[in-house]
């Protein structure tokens, strides 16, 4: 462990020749349990040092790391694909000591990538989180997982224990404090302001913005919230540099990504793919399909459906998917078989999305419920002639009127289902349920209860706020 840490100065060429193309994040993934610290350092080498050489040098190195992430073109992997370096610069440039949150809440029912990372490669996420913390001048890193992800929390605590022991021999000397927090299991709990709200003692529900977390987040301090996979990429970019990162992927979406593939394939699970790779190659890697496909849902329950006839030649990058009104989101890919009824599945999804509303904003609370009711009526064949217009109108009435994007994502996925499965919807509207309506349910929609509402707010009419 005496090798000196790689630098970001650019005067040393990154060691990309020695690194195989894929897997990157999932390299050396143990078949059972988590990769220990020793193995992790032997495989990746120690992360570059950012802090500890005096203020001026520290500052320079912090800026250099953010610049490298910028050049790498890393986009956030929590779903929004926002440029990570832009977010980091905003946090670093805000007044006050920053806080970094590693968001592995992964509330999307069909996503398992963040869980997989933490259970198997916790040190990669911790490296990235600590590097990000040092880059934005944070003294605190909080890793957030959901309550049901007990194995993730356990793996993290073991990894932190290993680091505490190692810290004595100087192998991993890092200043930010690290702690693990758990969040309740419901769909909007993973939204970044919901995480901040929960950590601050409130419910795990979204907050009204502005202020944005980067200017005033947890405890009113500038807060960087990054998805766990995003941080894992930072851990590798800091070691190998931007040119290495850009060897894979597309110019606008460089690098590799973790995707969770489920549905009728031989080996559903988490895969690492290059952005722009074909869906066909992913399905092949998963052992091929085990049923005829009717379509696929890309980007999870805020994403979009694409019909089977358009899946051939589909590329897994946002540029390719934009033509189909879809995006990769957090990498969730759900294949829908030909034996499921897409209308029944959509109706179940609509009701679930409505139930997952945080019940804070009127348009979301009432709008998603009305939307679900209309879709259920079509599925049961008891909708009026104007049901489709009603759904379109509800959609535009709900979009962009919530504190978070839950209503927007829900409308997007439901309208894409109605468009993709137009023929089946028309059939149900006319004749009611089909034989396939009774088929086993395919979209995983676990019951995840949202905590009961707090007592109603009594508006205070005393005291003026001007």
């Amino acid at each position, binding site marked *: 462990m005496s090798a000196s840490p790689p630098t970001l100065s650019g005067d040393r060429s990154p060691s990309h020749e020695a690194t195989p193309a894929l897997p990157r994040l999932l390299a050396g993934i143990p078949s059972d349990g988590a990769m220990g610290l020793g193995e992790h350092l032997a495989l990746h080498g120690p992360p570059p040092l950012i802090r500890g050489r005096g203020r001026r040098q520290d500052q320079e190195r912090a800026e250099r790391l953010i610049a490298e992430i910028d050049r790498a073109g890393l986009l956030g992997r929590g779903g929004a694909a*926002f440029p990570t370096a832009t977010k980091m610069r*905003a946090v670093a440039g805000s007044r006050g000591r920053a806080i970094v949150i590693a968001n592995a809440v992964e509330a999307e029912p069909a996503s398992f990538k963040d869980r997989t990372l933490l259970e198997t490669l916790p040190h990669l996420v911790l490296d990235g989180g600590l590097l990000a913390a040092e880059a934005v001048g944070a003294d605190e890193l909080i890793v957030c997982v959901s309550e049901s992800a007990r194995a993730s929390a356990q793996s993290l605590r073991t990894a932190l224990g290993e680091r505490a022991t190692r810290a004595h021999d100087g192998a991993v000397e890092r200043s930010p404090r690290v702690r693990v927090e758990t969040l309740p299991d419901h769909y909007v709990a993973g939204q970044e302001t919901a995480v901040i709200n929960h950590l601050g003692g409130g419910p795990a529900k*979204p*907050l*009204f*913005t*502005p202020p*944005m977390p980067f200017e005033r987040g947890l405890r009113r301090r500038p807060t960087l919230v990054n998805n766990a996979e995003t941080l894992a990429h930072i851990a590798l970019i800091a070691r190998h540099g931007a040119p290495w990162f850009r060897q894979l992927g597309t110019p606008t979406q460089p690098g590799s990504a973790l995707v969770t593939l489920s549905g009728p394939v031989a080996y559903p699970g988490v895969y690492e793919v290059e952005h722009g790779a074909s869906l066909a190659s992913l399905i092949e890697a998963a052992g091929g399909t085990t049923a005829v496909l009717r379509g696929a849902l890309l980007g999870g329950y805020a994403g979009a459906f694409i019909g089977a006839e358009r899946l051939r030649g589909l590329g897994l990058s946002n540029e390719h998917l934009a033509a189909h009104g879809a995006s990769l989101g957090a990498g969730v890919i759900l294949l829908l078989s030909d034996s499921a009824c897409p209308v029944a599945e959509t109706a179940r999804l609509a009701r679930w999305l409505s139930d997952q509303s945080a019940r*804070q*904003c*009127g*348009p*979301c609370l*009432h*709008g998603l419920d009305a939307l679900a009711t209309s879709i259920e009526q079509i599925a049961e064949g008891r909708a009026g002639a104007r049901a489709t217009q009603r759904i379109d109108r509800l959609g535009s*009435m709900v979009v962009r*009127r*919530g*504190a978070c994007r839950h209503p927007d994502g829900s409308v997007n996925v439901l309208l894409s289902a109605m468009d993709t499965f137009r023929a089946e919807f028309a059939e149900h509207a006319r004749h009611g349920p089909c034989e396939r309506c009774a088929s086993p349910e395919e979209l995983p929609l676990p019951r995840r209860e949202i905590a009961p509402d707090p007592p109603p*707010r009594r*508006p205070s*009419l005393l005291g003026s*706020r*001007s």
Partner: protein
Amino acid sequence: MSHRVSVNPITCEAHGMCAEMLPERVTLDEWGYPIVDETPVSGAVLAHAMRAARACPTFALLVERERAPSRR
């Protein structure tokens, strides 16, 4: 310098005062929640907007000076 009207959807409880007092910018949806036109306001309309904001029982109606569009 222009101002913009918006609503905090979390604090809003659909009292509907804003639509009464600022029909120039606010209409209500079928559940009584405001749909706000975010075209900048000035002059007399700005004065109405300020009055409507003060009258909102939950202070959910916001009148803010235009700022750089936030990342959302």
